[in-house]
């Protein structure tokens, strides 16, 4: 669980020692996202090029249960749709299309098998790859997990798509039951080796829980809470994409 603790330690320390670093990237409706969650050194070159040249941006979201919400409005309220809405708001001149390919209970290896088809069917400029939870729950060998993502990212990059890895959710009720540590580390290693951004969903959700924005300990069925969390995740992802692809110049002033 090393990284879980570290993420927390980090957020506290940063809070204490550098208030400037905490300047929220956006602060609408309580979605406070410290800038270190949405900025990094990895670049999204294909996205930048696509937006510059064609004013179009196609994003495929590859994920599992935590990339979707159930119910009749689930698809519209889950973060892929919220990301599309946020990007359309902030980049009015760009045609954004976010395709969600989330399927329950898929391991990284399962998803890696489908990548060729994703590249052909969707021709994405960017693939958001959310994974880790299912592998951790099933106790998939961490080395296999890491090499599945590593090979997958390589394949996507060879297929002219940028990649953003999205790690697990912060789930305080089950965190003593699912050992995420080695899987988190594995994703971090791949992100660094392949020079792709890692969206630290776990750290961000923990940050929201700790600063009281959302009570993620809640056990009861609460669709409103789930929708709000996904909306905030979608917006944070939009910030990450705009920042990593240097799309600030396309941003509408009104939406900022």
């Amino acid at each position, binding site marked *: *669980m*090393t*990284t*879980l*603790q*570290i993420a*927390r*330690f*980090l957020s*506290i*320390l940063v809070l204490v020692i550098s208030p400037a670093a905490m300047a929220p990237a956006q602060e609408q409706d309580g979605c406070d996202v410290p800038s*270190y969650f949405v900025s*990094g*050194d990895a670049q999204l070159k294909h996205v930048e090029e696509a937006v510059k040249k064609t004013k179009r941006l196609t994003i495929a979201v590859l994920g*599992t*249960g*935590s990339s979707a*919400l*159930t*119910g009749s409005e689930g698809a519209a309220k889950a973060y892929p749709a919220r990301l599309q809405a946020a990007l359309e708001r902030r980049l009015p001149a760009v045609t954004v299309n976010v395709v969600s390919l989330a399927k*329950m*209970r898929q391991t990284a290896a399962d998803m890696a098998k489908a990548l060729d088809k994703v590249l052909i069917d969707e021709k994405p400029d960017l693939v958001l790859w959310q994974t880790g*939870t*299912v592998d951790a*729950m*099933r*106790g*998939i*060998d*961490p080395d296999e997990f890491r090499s599945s993502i590593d090979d997958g990212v390589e394949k996507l990059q060879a297929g002219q798509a940028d990649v953003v890895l999205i790690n697990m*959710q912060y*789930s*305080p*009720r*089950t*965190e*003593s*039951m*699912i*050992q995420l540590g*080695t899987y988190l*580390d*594995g994703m971090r*290693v791949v992100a*660094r*080796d392949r020079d792709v951004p890692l969206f630290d969903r776990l750290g961000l959700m*923990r940050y929201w*829980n*700790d600063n009281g924005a959302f009570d*993620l*300990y*809640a*056990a*009861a*069925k*609460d*669709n409103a*809470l*789930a929708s709000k*969390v996904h909306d905030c995740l979608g917006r944070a992802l939009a910030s990450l994409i705009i920042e990593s692809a240097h799309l600030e110049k396309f941003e509408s002033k009104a939406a900022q």
Partner: protein
Amino acid sequence: MSVTETTAPAASAPVIVPPAVTAPAAERDLRLDLFRGLALWLIFLDHIPSNIVSWVTIRNYGFSDATEIFIFISGYTAAFVYGRAMKERGFIVSGARILKRAWQIYVAHIFLFMIYLAEIAYVARGFNNPLYAEEAGILDFLQQPDVTIVEALLLKFKPSNMDVLPLYIVLLLLFPPILWLLQRKATLALLASAALYAAAWEFGWNLPAFPNGHWYFNPFAWQLLFVFGAWCALGGADRLSALLKSKVTIAVAALYLLFAFCITLTWHFPRLEHLLVPKWLSDEIYPIDKTNLDVLRFAHFLALAAVTVHFIPRDWPFLSSKYLKPAIICGQHSLEIFCFGVFLAFAAHFAKVQISGGVAMQIAVSLLGILAMIGAAWLISWYKTIEGRKPGARPKTPDADLAGGEA
């Protein structure tokens, strides 16, 4: 599971010591108890998920963590206790005692598993948050107790935080022949252990786990630390003493600790990574594999041990201070306190889920947990005292815990 070994005869058993720590220096090295006690506290803190207090634990400042300390000292004390038994009573008797200890640990593990099931089953009730439909799947194993419980009894299904005792069981099962060899050809035994470690890396040996994958602590890799501890106990430490006194060794160890500290700093502050860790270096060191006791972790433990032994000599006066006694008595009853710590970590998580997960609660459960561990250790010492003094009691038993502990 608490457990003087009542069937084993006394031979030259150490005198039963009251809770006050007064064993003769020649008999026992209080540093072992102290650091094992501290390791137990750190393991407890690390086992509480999302715990602000756990930033004090050593894993945040270097590659190795409290597990290494615990396993090393356990190997050391096991060799100390059973080595003497093997010299005096032979291979069969001491081997039988070691296996009995393994059985006790197995029973303790299954007991903890029951508590874990109870906690999980309770927490699972009414867990219906739509955000976590996927994560709630972890509770599915409650639906098929026929499979889950059998796999747990086979030590293949091990919920998180319950990986150390199964490792320990396997280490003890392998220990009689290793101890036999250590007493005859110590260096050969250590080389054999290193060869097994290397083979486990080369051929990917590990034990299977349920539902997938392998043991979190690979016994074929982690045995190196246990055997190294045993080797140190049986004269290896003396052989190393010249090396440990050398200023060069300490300087190298200190430099390595500093290096590890800088690397871990980049885990806390990812922005530092490009400053401190060039690409070739990160290609070289990552991933740092805990399952297979990465050589960087092992080296970090060795460096930590070398520096510690250098600055804290065996006759360090502060060792008999009353301020260190709480840690020392915890270290003297390590199996019981370890198990209790695992239970307390479950309880702490339960309290966080049911009451509040805030920072105040994290600090409260951490402090209360450590106090409870100290109280339990004190109580166990007291029990041993009254049992030892009871008139007409059976002959005093060689108490492995007090002789440096077995667990």
